């Protein structure tokens, strides 16, 4: 695997209700482990993954927020979110467990154009 491509993982689902959010995250982490540059983009209810103070022990699931917080340790620091999705849900930067760059529609379309492989979950 000498060649390298720029990966973008889009995550559109809220945590815990389904496995989409976990699967997106595992895909991004694996891509980083394989030393490919990877960005993540949170759209729609996917932005709810960014909320602090998740306590999923009562529903017997792993804390997805904790894994998200570790993304920068895996050199996944290109994190983006749909500005409108955050705004509609009243999510401020201080509500989020890690900093993300907020993008409008033009920014999202441009982000996609600068990546080679886009996987959406």
């Amino acid at each position, binding site marked *: 695997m000498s060649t390298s491509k720029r990966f973008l993982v889009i995550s559109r689902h*809220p*945590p*815990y*209700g389904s496995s989409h959010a976990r699967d997106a995250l595992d895909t991004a982490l694996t891509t980083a482990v394989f030393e490919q540059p990877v960005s993540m983009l949170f759209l729609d209810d996917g932005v*709810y993954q960014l*909320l602090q103070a998740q*306590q*999923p022990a009562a529903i017997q699931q792993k804390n997805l*927020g904790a894994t998200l917080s570790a993304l920068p340790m895996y050199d996944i620091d290109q994190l983006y979110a749909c500005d409108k999705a955050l705004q*509609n849900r009243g999510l401020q930067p201080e509500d989020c467990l890690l900093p993300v760059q907020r993008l409008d529609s033009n920014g999202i379309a441009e982000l996609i154009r600068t990546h080679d492989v886009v996987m959406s979950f």
Partner: protein
Amino acid sequence: MTLHTLNRPPSNTALLTDCLNACSSGDCLLLIEDGVYCALAQQPLELPEGVTACVLAADVAARGLQSRLHDSIRQVDDAGFVKLCCEHPRVISWY
């Protein structure tokens, strides 16, 4: 009287609309799983007259939403979910 459970976020507008349209006065709406996002103060639910709403506490805590719930919405635990089922002769699940 009917208990309606709903487990999808409000972005699923058609589901939420169908559920609310199907409610009669005296019915109760219990928000579970990703349905608890419908209970946030940020986007207040427009409940039909005579319809009350609750959320399942474990699902609220899991998603970090404790401080973001709308005042009018009561939290119930699993035992409370069972009790609601007993109090309503009919239960419909919207998913």
